[in-house]
């Protein structure tokens, strides 16, 4: 029983990271109708920036905030330079753009910080949380930071004018322009926020998986699985999907014989395929109907 509870809690902790990545993916998907394959590499690069700042002696939370600001601006720049010109291009052109972005950022991380794995500090420590053996303080910190982030995002989108404008631009761009919203900048803002959210995920997971340029590839795969499970059209669904995938991954790794650690990633892929076949809109998504 203790093993079971332990796996559930550990699943919620990693699920929090998947939730962040899924949310970042969904935010960009809502804005431009494309999946950002480079979301993980962007998060990794941000995490390297944080690591570098800490190496230079910046205190952890200072580095955390600077990294968020850097990622926010970086995300906006990527949108302005690469994807704004591709806005009306065919899907495959955009896919090529994302793959290029993936390769470029991945190589840049390797070039600047090389491929040896690095320790990333945790501000929470790794002792047992509240004296319980079930969960470590870092895992509790991962859950806590994610929950605070989600609450802030909820209030931003629900109660601020700019949040309302961003939702309007994502749901009906033409109507949004007709009430005077600059939808192009709303998309850029979405990129900035998604990149910053990805950076938080990267910085939280780095102490667990160690920092190296390919750190987020597996994590992003789970993020995609979470987004698909929850529904690509639903930010709320993406978050729930993240936690579910985290729990499912841990339970499957522990209880299904033969899965173990090695076969955990194919589980994410199997989950994506199963959802797409059985319920393409996901748990909370709207079915997507396109006129042809």
């Amino acid at each position: 029983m203790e093993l079971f509870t332990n796996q559930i809690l550990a699943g919620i902790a990693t699920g929090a990271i998947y939730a962040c990545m899924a949310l970042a993916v969904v935010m960009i998907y809502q804005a431009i109708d494309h999946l950002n394959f480079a979301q993980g590499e962007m998060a990794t690069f941000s995490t390297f920036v944080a690591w570098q700042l800490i190496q230079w002696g910046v205190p952890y939370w200072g580095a955390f905030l600077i990294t968020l600001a850097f990622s926010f601006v970086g995300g906006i720049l990527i949108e302005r330079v690469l994807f704004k010109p591709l806005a009306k291009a065919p899907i495959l052109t955009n896919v090529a753009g994302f793959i290029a972005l993936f390769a470029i950022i991945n190589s840049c991380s390797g070039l600047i910080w090389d491929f040896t794995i690095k320790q990333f500090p945790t501000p929470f420590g790794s002792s047992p949380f509240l004296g319980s053996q079930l969960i470590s303080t870092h895992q509790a910190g991962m859950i806590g930071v994610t929950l605070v982030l989600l609450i802030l995002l909820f209030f931003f989108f629900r109660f601020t004018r700019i949040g309302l404008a961003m939702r309007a631009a994502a749901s009906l761009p033409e109507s949004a322009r007709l009430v005077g919203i600059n939808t192009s900048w709303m998309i850029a803002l979405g990129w900035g926020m998604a990149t910053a959210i990805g950076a938080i995920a990267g910085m939280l997971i780095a102490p667990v998986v160690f920092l190296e340029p390919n750190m987020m590839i597996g994590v992003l795969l789970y993020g995609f699985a979470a987004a698909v499970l929850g529904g690509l059209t639903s930010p709320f669904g993406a978050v729930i999907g993240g936690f579910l995938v985290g729990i499912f991954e841990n339970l499957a790794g522990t209880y299904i014989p033969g899965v173990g650690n090695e076969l955990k990633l194919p589980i994410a892929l199997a989950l994506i395929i199963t959802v797409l076949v059985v319920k393409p809109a996901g748990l909370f998504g709207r079915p997507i109907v396109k006129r042809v």
Partner: protein
Amino acid sequence: MTTMLNVRDLRAYYGQVQALHGLEFGLNEGSLTTLLGANGAGKTTTLRAICNMVRTTGSIEFEGAPLTGRSTENIVRLGIAHVPQGRGTFTTMTVEENLQLGSITRKDKAGIVSDIERMYDHFPVLKARHTQQAGTLSGGEQQMLAVARALMLRPRLMLLDEPSFGLAPLIVRDLFKILGKINREDKVTILVVEQNAQLALELADKAYVIETGRIVMSGNAAEIANNEDVRKSYLGY
């Protein structure tokens, strides 16, 4: 009376297809003008051209300033509200959020709050449903919401694309009454595109008739309503 909107030699294109062939017309400040025509004549395209939502050549001037080259959102910010065909309701948001979106470019918080109350006076049904998702409203209610959302901009000019489309006759009468009131009391200049010519001509003071991308007739609404050709072609009696 001063001319608020002046359109000269307007041509519009959808890809290779030309939809407007040198349209010329003007709107007087404070007027209520209707643009009549059959399906495919170019009525919707004309409204879309004013808001730069379709590729055009020619000149459109609003209060003396050219609109060509401005983005849709910047044209709206000048005080031109456009109620599109199909209403453009943000269906997943509440009625009140839709109204707030109408005023999203304004900075005067107190004015926005009082304007929302004013819209609830104009359209009591919206007040009753202000927390409801806009997608759950009936067609007539959504059209009222679309008009109210446009008014939240405090527009100088309002463009309406077939507001009567898909609505029961009684509701259309109500809606047109409100449009007349907005035109008279709030001094909003209105251009309304309609297939329901009879009703539009009762309401409007000026009318243009458009045929395959050209203005073929213009005049006072009463004159046009009594014109034999128009009656045969568009009024059906």
